[in-house]
């Protein structure tokens, strides 16, 4: 039976090495029935974009706690757009101040999750807003 599974790339761009949250999310997405490609810490936006293309994912989830989200998140979105892959949904999470949000949405991010967001709300957001790419 033909089944399109939602595929998610989870990555931590930049120098921040705190990936406990990302691992919890990876497990949570696995339990929600998604295929999660976890790529770990310390990646450049270029590495993340290249991996997203090779893995043909529907969603790229970026996590950043170090404060560099204002540069890193838009950079990933831009690289995907340059490759004609702006149909891949980019979402972000981590320590993201309220005043940075507008700029991130403008840069192409579709959702931002900050501490306190429940795992259920993330899964629900994806199930509601992401259709596996035809």
């Amino acid at each position, binding site marked *: 039976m033909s089944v399109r599974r939602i*595929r998610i790339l989870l990555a931590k761009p930049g120098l921040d090495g705190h990936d406990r949250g990302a691992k919890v999310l990876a497990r949570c997405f696995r339990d929600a029935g*998604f295929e999660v490609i976890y790529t770990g810490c310390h990646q450049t936006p270029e590495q993340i974009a290249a991996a997203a293309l090779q893995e043909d994912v529907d969603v790229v989830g970026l996590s950043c706690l170090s404060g560099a989200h204002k540069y890193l998140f838009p950079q990933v979105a831009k690289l995907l757009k340059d490759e004609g892959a702006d149909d891949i949904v980019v979402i972000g999470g981590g320590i993201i101040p309220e005043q940075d949000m507008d700029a991130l949405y403008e840069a192409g991010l579709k959702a931002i999750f900050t501490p306190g967001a429940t795992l259920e709300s993330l899964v629900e957001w994806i199930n509601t807003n992401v259709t596996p790419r035809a």
Partner: protein
Amino acid sequence: MKELGKRVLSGDIRAASRLIRNLEDQVPNTYIAMQEIFTKTGNSHVIGITGAPGAGKSTLTDELIYSYRQKDKSVGVLAVDPTSPFTGGALLGDRVRMLRHAEDKRVFVRSLATRGSMGGLSKAVGEGIHVLDALGKAKVIVETCGVGQQEVEIINHAHTVIVVLVPGMGDEIQALKAGLMEVADIFVINKADREGAGKLYKETLNMVHMSKGSKEDAKGWNIPVLLVESVLEPHKFAKSVDVLREKVDEHYQYLIDNNLLSDRMRRKTSAEINEALWAAILQPVLNDLEKDGKLDKMVDKVLKKEVDPYSLAEEIACRYIK
């Protein structure tokens, strides 16, 4: 769907990743793209890397990619991880160890989930190999899901099978058992600086010696048993993987020189016909049964012991296959 195969042949990365996904998801009519590429395939050397979970297959794959890139060979990787039997989800984490190649345009790494297949490989792996072959990769490395003793499906797909062993996994009786230990063209004893490596090395050598003359090696392939040092000493690790790369290439040359390549391919081809038949015959039947909940009703009936699965299957077969 049409032209997708042609785009793969022209080296289009996105077309390749999309085609592999369509194969995994069993999207209807994907065979059209496969028809476009199939006759152009058969140029890649397919290398299987298999062994227990945690044996170091991904790290070994990463170093092997590096070693091949030093020789200017293009490399494609299919890395398989398990699907949850409960949720159907999967965490594919092999890529974490291969990050340094992410931006190398001549390396293509794709993670696949087993999606319920029992042989340590997903059904799409065999087809994915053709896609990477059509993409022009000289070497296609298939890293199996961490397998147990009987998961040996890799021999249906690879020209050269590397079995990775680590010290501390069992006694010499394990080495004598059927299954995994029989499929190796090359043994790697990984983490060879660990206690017990020497013993494992000797046991594996003994086992290889005993099986001499039993299969293709009758024609002269001596199954090597290689010791690979820990990654904690990167230089030594790289050096031992270079030796492995040489052996892998030597084995491929041996297959070519002795006209054994087609024997290996025969196995794969027969498995492929098998799978294509499954898709062509069984899948439409299953799809039809799943429609309107017919299959669910059958499950209920069997559960209530009103009928047995064997009579049910025979009845269905009679109805669909004339």
